[in-house]
């Protein structure tokens, strides 16, 4: 039960929100931050748990469409080859760099929101005390 509450629910909610944001055509930055919001709210108030959840959720949100495209449409690999020739990087690196950026931003956003949650709780506790 703890596993579901602490990880599965937040991750699924993050994935759903992220995919909806993507389908709506939002910018990657907003998707990364959107993913972090339900994650941070639903995750336990621990930076570690939030970080694990956000990494898993954003990894799914950002890699799933690319893997799907590569497997469904051979023109995707042509595009990767072109980008690879333009940049001089391998296609794996081309895919990996931005995904790492998305994940890190999602993670940072998640940590920031969890910190905000903690501050709120702390202040509320002090006021009650």
């Amino acid at each position, binding site marked *: 039960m703890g596993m579901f509450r602490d990880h599965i629910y937040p991750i699924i909610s993050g994935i759903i929100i992220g995919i909806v944001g993507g389908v709506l055509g939002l910018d990657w930055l907003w998707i990364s931050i959107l993913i972090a919001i339900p994650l941070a709210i639903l995750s336990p108030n621990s930076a570690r748990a939030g970080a694990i959840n956000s990494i898993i959720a954003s990894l799914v949100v950002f890699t799933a469409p690319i893997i799907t495209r590569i497997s469904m449409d051979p023109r995707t690999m042509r*595009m990767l080859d072109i980008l690879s020739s333009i940049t001089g990087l391998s296609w794996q690196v081309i895919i990996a760099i*931005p*995904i790492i*950026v998305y994940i890190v931003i999602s993670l940072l956003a998640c940590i920031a929101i969890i910190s905000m949650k903690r501050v709120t709780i702390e202040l509320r506790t002090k006021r009650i005390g």
Partner: protein
Amino acid sequence: MGIAREIAVMAVSLILIILLTLSFGSVASLMNPYAGVWTEIGRGDFRGSIKISVKGIDNSVTVVFDSDMVPHIFASSWRDAAFALGYLHAYHRLWQMDIQKRLAEGRLSEILGNSTLKQDIYMRIVGLYRAAVNTTKWLENSYPDVYSIMAAYSAGVNMAIEGMKARNELPLMFKLLGYEPEPWRPEDSMAWALYMAWGLTNFFEPLELTYLAIKLGPSDTNILFPVHPYYGDNVTVIPGDGSINSLRINKDPGYLRSLNWFSQWATGIDLSDRDLAQQILDAIESILDLSGEKPPDIGSNNWVVGPSRSATGGAIMADDPHLPLNIPAIWYEAHIKTPDMNVRGVTLPGIPFIIIGFNEHVAWGLTNTQIGVMDFYLEKISNGSYLYNGEWRPLKVVEEPIRVKGYGVYLLKVNITANGPIISTKGAPISFRWVGNAGYMNDNSGVTRQVLAIYLVNKAKSYEDLVNALRYWDIPSQNWAFIDRENNYGIIIPGLFPYRSVRLPDGDVVRVIGSRSILNGSGGYAWEGYVPYEQIPRTINPQRGWAAAPNQMSVGPYYPYFILGSWWDPGARAQRIYQLLSSKDKHSVEDMMKYQSDIYLWYASSSIPTLIRAVEGYRDLSPVELKALEILRSWDYRMDKNLVAPTIWWAWFSALYDESFAKIYTDHGIKLRLYPTEDALVWLIHNMPSSKWFGGNLSDAARKALSKAISSLKAIYGDDINSWVWGKVHRLYIAHLSGLKPLSIEPVPEDGASATLMNAGFQYDLRNLGREVFVRTGPSWRIIAYVERGSIKAYGIYPGGQSENPVSDYYKNFFDTWYSYKYRELDLPTNPEAVRSKIATIDIVPG
């Protein structure tokens, strides 16, 4: 303590987010799995049935795509068809349209920054956009029905832009460069049409010849650059001596050709004044620097054969315009069917008409005329005024703010005199007058009517309609080859040809077109008007049964106007097509295909025997040199990429160029590589073998050149002469418009040469050996149209593909067919069901 720590964590996280966004934001956007480059992948590859509802059309339009992604547009009016064409152009070529528009309007720096500022300054001085705005206004007021086609086209483009933006489907180049397209306007279409015209008529030869006349002297300049080509008179576009409607020039052409047109009587300028000459030289260098390098060997072929000389008894037309070859290609193929028109051919993305093609009644093809329609004037300027016809007039100053990415705004002030904009940036003030700026009324309005002409041509129902339409074809002057379904055929040379009167040294006055030198801009050398349409050269159903116009001399020397600005092709392609068309009685469509891919080099055939005779007596020829001569002796003068002989010829002729001109040019302080065209060198070989150009002895010069050529080839390609095949030296590279190699077509060995019918532009320059120098110009579109049982049929092909999307199956699918000299059949289906091998249908309905 706890709160402070949490706030610190929050702050650090936010700062890191901002830093990451700033550092990787553009890369992250580009690779966004939802909205990044991936959305480009399927753009424009239409499949199945699609229905879209739009505002801006009157009735439904059906677009059927065949298996080459060529759209067949069925509409109830041309206006609706133009809307659909705009939509398709944008879906398949939006970035190309945008970058071309920016090039024409001098707005590249807005997206590319400082690196393109010089190019933008140049285009702002030329003022194509100013002319485009005026022409669009004129069209809207004078021909609202034609304007409405342009407006509908723009609306179609804009609908596609909005759709692509909404779906994050903007083409890859927008994403790579990080900008978005603006809405398209009719002025943008007009600007691109004018850019094409500018590119085909901006002959800077009067500047170059003035430069040479000052440095080298008028006499030598006239030898190297004769008034009319040395081998031009017998292969003119229009058969005959040039007289028209019983009018002929009242002077002996031989006398006119022999005159020194750099003299003060001809130009109003004393080039022997050393201070003035230096100022002019400085100005010329500044102009040539500003304008940049022009692509070499822009030209084209076309010819027509009448029923008496056709194997099938029906007229045949062949046309292949030689232009810079890029990907995406300059052309986009389309078929448009409306109740009063059924037309197919190639369009220019950005312009809603078929430029070269055919309808059910006529077929037409264009080549460049290459008659001077631009003169340069030396101005007298003082305190913001210029001297003109004895009075000082204030300069017109036009402010042109140029936005430069990363730098702000560069404010350019263009000074304009009665002659035109001042284009020199150093030395003497030199302006230029170009028909595109002067306008069809010669009133500096910049209003020209070629859009009206092409609209009428697309609708022509007979050759008479076509000829009548072309009275509005102002610029660029072109050789229009045509046939109609009644088997009429011919060539007409419409355009605005400015003339002025010149008093000759003997006191007589002649009317001349163009100039060979800078002219005095203070009056007395201005254009008086344009050649009336009735006196425009033409040949219709000529007796000999054919006519041809591969950019050679347009008319015989007795044409009523002396053509001084004669920047014609020297005529090797003309000589060859004359040879081919005279070689047999009847020609088939297959023959026409062979002629378009013909790689016989007339210059080689007309000089190799003489050159071999000149050197074969030398006893010190090395075994490789002897072998080279043996190979040349048995050569059939075909520039075949698999043969060694073309390489030897090219290297030898290139070395002979250097041997003949390099030292003399250096001695005279000539920094520009202004070598004469091949015909002049061939003429010197035959007519002045003991001249200073060959150091007094052609044999010695040819011997030295052969030695230099062979040693250069050995140094690059090794000792085995059998490995020196032409395809190693002569390679075709079709580069992406951005210059990005991964989006370009890999270099391939190529047949031909600059002067073969199968044009493949390549300079005679030994320095090119072993360097990344490629063929970059050639047949941008090949079409052969013919009459069969009263109907017009056609074949065509261009290098590239319909889509600019680099991962599309239609990005370069035409290339292999074009490269192997094959064609695609072009038909004119009359309804959507009749389109063969269809792959998709779009129904555009009024919304």
